[in-house]
């Protein structure tokens, strides 16, 4: 049985994610969300439709995937890029442990930058009327876990992880998701929206294109599958620079 958490790896990953410009960019997005929430609330007062529109149309559709792309790929891709991952892999730490540790750190960081601001924005917008703030906070938490696993896998598999992650989040989920409802079956955003749909009062008009069971099963499958496969890939990792 390999450990799932290695404190030193975690500390290094935290430092890589929260240092430099990366943290700044990640902080800009939730700040913008809170600014919009205040800008909507102050002149118009609490309004449930406005809350659903901001939390669903902006927070869950744009802020959450973007922060997750940055943190998920950022927890491993830069190390692979500049070659310093050699020093990490040469240590007697199971590679599956490295992946699960980095996953936990990525989830913690993205939760800090998305789940907390989404909840606060929900409270600002309508004070949790019809449980809208709870609903979107739960959906964000679920989405953050799945996104982090998927983008971490991308970071291990491809050198263009950021671009591919953005293609998935913006073109597949946002563009095709709007044009073709069937895309919702393969969209983290829709899977996690099923949770919001369950929690929010029926008058809040929060809907998802997939059923609750399908959403939860797919979320778990995507998360566990991505972590497992990322560990496999890291275990058989070869360096492109050697050839």
């Amino acid at each position, binding site marked *: 049985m390999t450990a799932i958490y290695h404190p030193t790896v975690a500390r290094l990953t935290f430092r890589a994610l929260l240092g430099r410009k990366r943290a700044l960019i990640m902080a800009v997005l939730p700040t913008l969300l809170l600014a919009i929430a205040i800008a909507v609330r102050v002149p118009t007062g609490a309004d449930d439709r406005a809350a659903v529109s901001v939390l669903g*149309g902006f927070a869950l559709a744009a802020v959450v995937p973007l922060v997750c792309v940055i943190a998920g790929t950022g927890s491993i891709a830069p190390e692979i890029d500049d070659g310093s991952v050699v020093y990490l892999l040469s240590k007697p730490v199971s590679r599956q442990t490295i992946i699960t540790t980095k996953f936990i750190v990525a989830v913690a960081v993205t939760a800090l930058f998305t789940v907390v601001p989404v909840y606060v924005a929900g409270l600002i917008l309508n004070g949790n009327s019809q449980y809208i703030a709870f609903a979107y906070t739960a959906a964000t938490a679920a989405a953050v876990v799945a996104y982090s696993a998927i983008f971490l896998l991308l970071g291990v598999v491809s050198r263009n992880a950021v671009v591919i992650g953005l293609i998935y989040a913006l073109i597949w989920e946002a563009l095709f998701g709007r044009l073709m409802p069937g895309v919702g079956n393969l969209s983290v955003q829709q899977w996690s929206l099923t949770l919001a749909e369950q929690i929010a009062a029926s008058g809040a008009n929060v809907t998802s294109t997939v059923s609750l069971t399908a959403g939860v099963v797919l979320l778990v499958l995507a998360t566990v599958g991505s972590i497992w496969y990322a560990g496999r890939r890291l275990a058989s990792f070869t360096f492109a620079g050697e050839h």
Partner: protein
Amino acid sequence: MPNDHAADPATTGGTPAGTATARGDARIHDIGYRGYDGPRLGRSHARRALVEQSVRGAFGIGRSAKSKILPMLLLAIMVLPAVIMVAVALVTNLDDLPLEYTRYAVMLQPVLGLYIALAAPQMVSLDLRYRTIPLYFSRPLERTDYVASKLAALATAIFLFTSLPLVVLYAGALLAELDAGDQTVGFLQGLAGAVVFALLHAAIALLVASLTPRRGFGVAAVIAVLTVPYFAATSLQVILHDLGNTAAAGWVGLLSPGTLMDGVQGAYLGGDTDFPPGSDPSAGGMGLAYLLVTVGLTALCSFLLVRRYRKEGI
């Protein structure tokens, strides 16, 4: 073989004064370096060459097979809906295309945004990262030439990327024997929209990309700058419209490049917009504001870009 240097005392022998060597027979051999006496093509040619090379690079031409994949894939995604629309129009004998020409770029904005985010850092980040900027300026090229060439190249690439599906739509419309006059007007409006779109986005994206020598970081930054305000502006518009404040919903469109373009096209190029009903800018007051902000933002970004390169590579 004529060799002017053969008679030069400095190269034929003797120790130059001031160089103390262990052995007395040190000499500089003539190994045949020759000066260049071919035609010198000058500044304008250098500028043109830089534009051409950058435009080709933006589509992956002249680069490795791997770097052709993404631009070509995105171009295919961009043209595909146009091909489908033409096919539908041909088969079902429509009287008009299912979509106005000016709407096309707005509908496929995520694809365009991604292409811009790939192309802009590719154009500037390598020069910054490997410090090749001084090499450019050792030629007759001026700093403003470098910036203007890159800007022109990116705008050209974006324009080609946006207008290719419009050409497909237009050709298909003529083949389907739709009204040629209407279609030509619509097509020209679409092209005009594409020019404005390309200039605005090239200026914004190049400025953002030039701030970092790291390509991946540049891609993410350009995407964020283009999409985050767009999502913010469109959801604010919906909210304001729901609350009955249609005028404010119109003004909020000024806040993102995407809605800005949409508004300009709606006001001046005879198109619909994605704006909530009733908040479209008209050609008068609000439309003028859209046009001014578009021109102003393009100019401001270009100015900042020139400033950003003023001290680069010294």
